[in-house]
């Protein structure tokens, strides 16, 4: 095979394995691609986990990525990169929730985060209220139930991946998901 000298091209097309390999050796460009690839999802997850508090979610995601940068050398690849990153978000969010006093949910913020249907203002308003209601209902769940529900329903993770991310047995994932869904369904029932 002939050796060809060339730039690696667009790193955004690199696999997770290739990015981790480069980041482990201190390649900040490769790490920036990891941040771009998984950061938005992690931020959304953190936002819902900490009940819509922007600053808290931002802090959680920043700390998760700093921790990832420091410890990526020890990331053995036994779990998926994404699962590992979400586990870092979860740990920091749980720490933050333990320290934080319960605060009322900011309805305006929730509305801002809700999708807008351009061509149907009424539909848009209803959708925004529905999402806000779900966020309120989520906030009443215990943190692990909330995390399990979010990882399953919004991140589409398998039970095994959720178990890995939250460091709990797969059986517990099923239990938390079942109880979380039941509670959310009850809370959302008034929207029928």
């Amino acid at each position, binding site marked *: *095979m002939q050796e060809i000298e060339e730039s690696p091209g667009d790193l955004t097309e690199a696999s997770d394995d290739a990015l981790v*390999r480069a980041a482990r050796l201190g*390649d900040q460009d490769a790490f920036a691609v990891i941040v771009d690839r998984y*950061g938005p999802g992690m931020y959304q997850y953190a936002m819902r986990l900490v009940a819509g508090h922007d600053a808290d979610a931002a802090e959680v995601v920043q700390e998760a990525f700093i921790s990832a940068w420091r410890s990526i050398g020890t990331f053995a690849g036994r779990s998926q990169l994404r699962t590992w990153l979400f586990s870092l978000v979860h740990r920091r969010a749980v720490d933050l929730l333990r320290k934080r006093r319960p605060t009322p949910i900011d309805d305006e913020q929730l509305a801002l985060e*809700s999708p807008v249907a351009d061509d149907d203002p009424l539909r848009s308003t209803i959708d925004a209220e529905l*999402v806000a209601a779900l966020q309120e209902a989520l906030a009443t769940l215990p943190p692990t139930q909330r995390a399990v529900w979010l990882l399953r329903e*919004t991140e589409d993770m398998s039970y095994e991946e959720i178990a890995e991310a939250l460091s709990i047995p797969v059986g517990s994932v099923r239990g938390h998901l079942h109880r979380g869904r039941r509670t959310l369904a009850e809370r959302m029932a008034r929207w*029928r």
Partner: protein
Amino acid sequence: MALTPDDPNTTPSTTPGTTPSAPPSGAADARPGDPLEQATALVRAESAEPPQQWGEVRDRIRDRVRLLVLPAEPVRLSRLDGAAVDDRDSTMTVSSRVLRAAVRQRLSGSTTHVPDAIDLEIEDELLTGLRLELVVAFGADLAAVVGRVRDDVAEALAALLGPDLGFGTPLRIDVEIVDVVPGDPRLV
């Protein structure tokens, strides 16, 4: 068949005129038009787009990563005459972090190989050896790759530390191929 809370088979019967006596696991969120299902779909759609403040958060992460100083060791420069100190009896050192970055960059320009690990062996601020782990593209001439890598590494280090890398003895560069991948190992 075993049912799980995710299993569509756990959805209760909604046949008109029948009412399930006790809804099974996850039943309430699985019916069409269910408010929880609708809200979940909206949240999923929302997740497909980056959050409004994500750009600022990303910039702060990048800044912090750039400023984060990871542990490193000083490595003494060599001189052509083999002396470890200069005329003023002082030494100059380069951070091991800089050396690793130089080696990494030097080895990142090829489609046939990429470093997986770069371990510098440092004793009393002197670089005594280097151990490299490589990922190589399937089909590459391994002997040629290893020879080329040794030359490239020695050249990259000499540019920073001076020509007498081993202070009188040749610098040991061990190379181990730890993986073979189909395609450009920088992307696969």
